[in-house]
Structure formats: structure tokens, C-alpha cells
């Protein structure tokens, strides 16, 4: 608590900085960020290049029965119950996981933000959108997906649509709430004063302000939708076999959890690492936003 008066301090070099955290904390945080970026890079590369990498066909049986990781070559990560390459299934599964996650997030974000912003500006739209969102929120996500799978069958487009619908109401609410606050800012009034038309007002003046919290939130949604996709595939409502997905792999491995726990552990850890990395990057983005 006590501070002693010191008058013999050396002259101080002043360099303004942004952060008030100690250098050690900053260094540790930066390391975490780079690890997250590296991991996502590996996953994204695996997903993009899955068809060109020298790995096995994910649906072909390369061995008889399952084998543990690090026991055979070239199947470093082992094989599953049907003797299929785990490496190959993870790489191809990344494709599905990322495509479904990213597409559903973007789709939910674009439609949600548009609906929310129009609702914030026009009363009649507000009433209509509000009613729609409330009814969407009233239906549990799993029931929604079940209904979609029942009526349209299981598959990637249905999954994207279902997950997007699941994420959409929150995006719309966030966008509507932010837009309603921002539209009373003097700079929006100033834009109206110079004769800006409603559409330009929405895109030029309101959208940038709305997108700041929305983008930060989208990262969280992406992570949660990837988990949701795995959960849905686990329930058998997702992409039908033999197409590999991470959730499907966890679901598959569950039957031999006691004899071969690695069949669940390996895809689960890949999913965990990916979701965690997205979370780390999301937090970094948010803190950057906060200081900007």
C-alpha cells in the first residue's frame, strides 16, 4: 500500500501503448492466439486439401477392425471399427464440419441482421419480424432439425438450413437492439439532415455499428454451431453415413467406448481444439474492438 517518494529515478522514455496489461500477460496471450491461428490453419488446410492429400479414401477399408493411434504406418491416428483411416475421415470430416458451421453462421447472420435492422427502422416490419422470431425461439433447436430431417431428409443443405434457422433469432435480436440504440446517435441524425435515403442510411450509417457486436458474436455462434452439428450427427439426424463428419465419428466410436476409447477421444479432441481456437480468436477480436 505504501509508496515511497523517489526523486532519483532515471529519465523516462515515453512511448504510448494501448494495453495496460503487464508484458508477461501480453506475451502469454499472444502465444495462445498464435497457437489457435495455427491449429485453425491446419484444420482449414486439411479440409480444403482433403481430396489432394496423400491419404486414404475415407470410406475404404484399409485395415481389419480398429487400431489405436501411433501403432501403425501410414495410419498414424489408427483406424475405426470398420478399418477406415481415422486421418482421412478427420480431414474429410473437417470439410463437412467447417462448411456446415461457416455456411450456417453466415446465412443466419446475413438474414438475421437484415431482418433485425429493418425491424429497428420500420414499425410494421418490427411487429412481423418480432412475431416470427418469437415463434422460432419457441421451437427447440433439436425439434426444428428433426422436423426438417423428417420432411426434407437428412443432408448437408438441410443441416445448414436448420442450424441457420437455429442461430438466426439471436442475430436478429442483437442487430435490432444495436440499431435501435445507434439510430439516435447524432451522426445518424446528421445523415438524415443531409437527405440520406433510408437504404443508404441502413448500409452506410447503421450497418458498421451493428456489425461490430454481430461479428464478435458470430465467432461464438460458429463454435457452437460446430458443436451442434456434431451433436446432430451424433443423434443420426445429420449427414447420412458413410460420409464422414466429426460428430458421426464420435457417435460411431461410442459403441466401443470401453474397448477403444480413442475412437471417441481423437475426433472429440479435434473438435474441442477447433472450437477452443475459434473462441480464443473471438476473444482477441472482442478485446481489439473494445480498445478501438
Amino acid at each position, binding site marked *: 500500500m505504501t509508496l515511497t517518494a523517489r526523486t532519483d529515478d532515471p529519465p523516462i522514455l515515453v512511448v504510448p501503448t494501448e494495453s495496460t496489461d503487464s508484458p508477461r500477460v501480453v506475451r502469454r496471450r499472444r502465444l495462445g492466439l498464435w497457437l489457435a491461428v495455427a491449429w485453425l490453419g491446419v484444420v482449414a488446410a486439411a479440409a480444403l486439401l482433403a481430396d489432394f492429400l496423400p491419404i486414404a479414401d475415407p470410406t475404404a477399408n484399409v485395415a481389419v477392425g480398429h487400431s489405436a493411434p501411433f501403432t501403425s504406418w501410414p495410419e498414424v491416428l489408427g483406424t475405426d471399427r470398420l478399418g477406415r483411416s481415422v486421418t482421412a475421415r478427420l480431414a474429410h470430416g473437417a470439410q463437412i464440419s467447417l462448411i456446415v458451421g461457416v455456411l450456417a453462421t453466415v446465412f443466419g447472420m446475413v438474414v438475421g441482421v437484415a431482418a433485425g435492422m429493418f425491424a429497428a427502422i420500420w414499425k410494421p416490419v418490427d411487429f412481423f419480424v418480432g412475431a416470427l422470431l418469437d415463434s422460432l425461439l419457441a421451437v427447440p433447436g433439436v425439434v426444428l432439425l428433426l422436423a426438417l430431417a423428417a420432411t426434407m431428409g437428412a443432408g448437408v443443405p438441410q443441416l445448414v438450413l436448420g442450424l441457420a434457422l437455429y442461430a438466426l433469432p439471436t442475430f436478429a435480436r442483437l442487430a435490432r437492439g444495436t440499431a435501435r440504440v445507434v439510430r439516435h446517435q*447524432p*451522426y445518424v441524425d*446528421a445523415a438524415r439532415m*443531409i*437527405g440520406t435515403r433510408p437504404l443508404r442510411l441502413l448500409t452506410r450509417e447503421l450497418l*458498421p455499428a451493428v456489425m461490430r457486436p454481430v461479428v464478435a458474436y458470430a465467432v461464438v455462434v460458429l463454435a457452437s454451431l460446430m458443436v451442434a452439428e456434431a451433436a446432430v450427427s451424433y443423434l443420426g439426424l445429420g449427414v447420412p453415413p458413410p460420409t464422414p463428419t466429426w460428430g458421426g465419428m464420435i457417435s460411431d466410436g461410442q459403441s466401443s467406448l470401453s474397448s477403444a476409447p480413442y475412437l471417441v477421444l481423437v475426433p472429440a479432441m479435434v473438435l474441442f481444439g477447433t472450437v477452443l481456437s475459434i473462441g480464443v480468436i473471438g476473444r482477441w477480436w472482442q478485446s481489439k474492438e473494445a480498445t478501438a
Partner: protein
Amino acid sequence: MAGTGTAHLRHSPALLRTEGLEVEFPLAGGGKVHAVSGVSFDLLPGETLAVVGESGSGKSTVAKAVVQLIRPTAGVVEFEGADLTTLREAALRELRARLQMVFQDPLASLNPWRKVIDVVAEPLNVAKRGERKDRREAARSMLRSVGLDPDVVGHRLASQLSGGQCQRVSIARALMLEPQVIICDEPVAALDVSVQAQILNLLNDLKSRLGLSLVFISHDLAVVRVVSDRILVMYLGKVCEVASAEQLFSHPQHPYTKLLLDSVPRLGDEPNADSTNPAVEMPSPIDPPTGCRFRTRCPLATQRCADEEPVLRQLEGDQFVACHYAGT
């Protein structure tokens, strides 16, 4: 009508004229806020009209109601032969080009994601005037005329400017469409003293150079004194007194005007205001006093002030006061 009336409106053709302007905000639990009740004023070419009042007087609401950023509940706003209150948004967009506004918060008045040069060029973009290159050139020369170097600040964002610089950019933007009237809502309230002086001088200078007319909304009488020709004093949504600047400062007549002037701190002097106990403050605009709205704080108040609302009446020359007893 109380603390209202139109006796002070002049016969010469006015640029901007409001009559019986009224703004009410409904409350969620019933009842309403009487923000502005029957305010009339006129603005002649080349004139600066100051609207003075404390917070809750409704002066900023008047500014927004005049330009229709808030639609008034009742009353008329005449500008260029049209009644703005009856116009639809599309027709308003045309007229607003010549009726501009400068806001109080310098930083929040500028879109934080756009460069200064784009902010200033935006009015021309919206109006689709000229080529893209010409618009930029026009914005650059406008920046120069408000005392900013376009090469230095043009590519910055609002957050990289000081408060005074932001306010200069706001003024530049307001001038781009060659307005006749600019409504300044507390334009210097958020600025430091030395910067305040720069902006006030800039406004005075632009006014005489471009032949502008100004409506200057402020709580600060010392600032108002520097810029205005005519002053309108508001209290709790109503007009108390209208007079030329000289007359109002030298011979204030309304008891509220006197209280305001006596409260202003003076350099090196004890203020005249009686600062003894107890505290008396502005009543709520949700349930304003009957009769004269100032009577709860007024030393002259009688039963008549509760029963009968005073209407603006002419005293001497160009001085009008809404009080039963002022000047007697």
C-alpha cells in the same frame, strides 16, 4: 396559451418561422411529457436567434422539431413557403438541404468508420451533385474554409481528431449543400474554453461571409452574448422573454431571465444570485404547474399566476415578455 403567444413575431418576411410549436412524448405508463408547449419564433435573413434555457427547458427539442427530426405534435414550421410539419420524408429531404444542423457532441456527430473527407463529401454524394472527383475537391476546399488542412485531416477518422476539429468537420458538412439557415444545438458546450472561442469566431465569420442565418441553442448566456442578435428565453417548454441581445442583457424583464443572468458566474465577482437555502428547482414537465410555469420559483408570483397563463406582450421597442407583472 401560457407563456406563449405570437405578439413578438415580426411582419417582415422571415426565412424560418414557427407558430405554436408543441411537442409531447407519451409515457409508457400513461400521461405525457410536455417538452415544448406553444413556442413561436421567426428568423430574419442574416440574423442569429439564440434560444436559451436550462436542461429540461425544451430548447433542444425545439431544434429537432423545427427540422422534423422529431415530428411536432402541433404547430406550424414555415420554411421557403412550405409547412415542414405537413411534408412527407421525400419532400423534406429536398428542403433540408437549405436548413442544416450542427449537434452538441462533436465526436458522436461523425460516423466513426468513415474518413473525414468522405463525411464532408457525403452531402454531395447523397444529392448526386457533380462528378466523384469534383465532390472530393469541393469537400477539400470546404475543409480549408473551416480552418482544417485536408491533406492532414482528410484521411483521418473522427476518433483521431480533437473535439474542436470534429466540430469544424460537422460545420463543413452542414455547409456543403449551401444552406440558408443552420441550427446549432449547443455547438460549443462540449469544448474547452480556448477551442470554444475558435468555433464561435468561425461561426461568426462564416455567417457574415456566406450570409447565413443561425438559430443558436445554448444554456450558456456568456456564449450567447458573443453570437446573437435576438434572444428567446425558454423555461419548461414555454417562452418567457424575447428581446434583442443588448436589451435582454441590459434590461432583463422576466423574473426568470433575471434569475438566469444573476446566476452566471462572473470573473472575480461574487454572483448576485441569492444562493441561500432552500433549494428550488424546475418542476417536472410531466405535470407542469398551472398558469405560469415559472410561478413555483418566482418572487413575484400571486394567485393570478396560478389561474391565468401570461401571454407574450410587448414592453418597449423589440422586447416581449410573458409575465403578468414584469415591467410594472
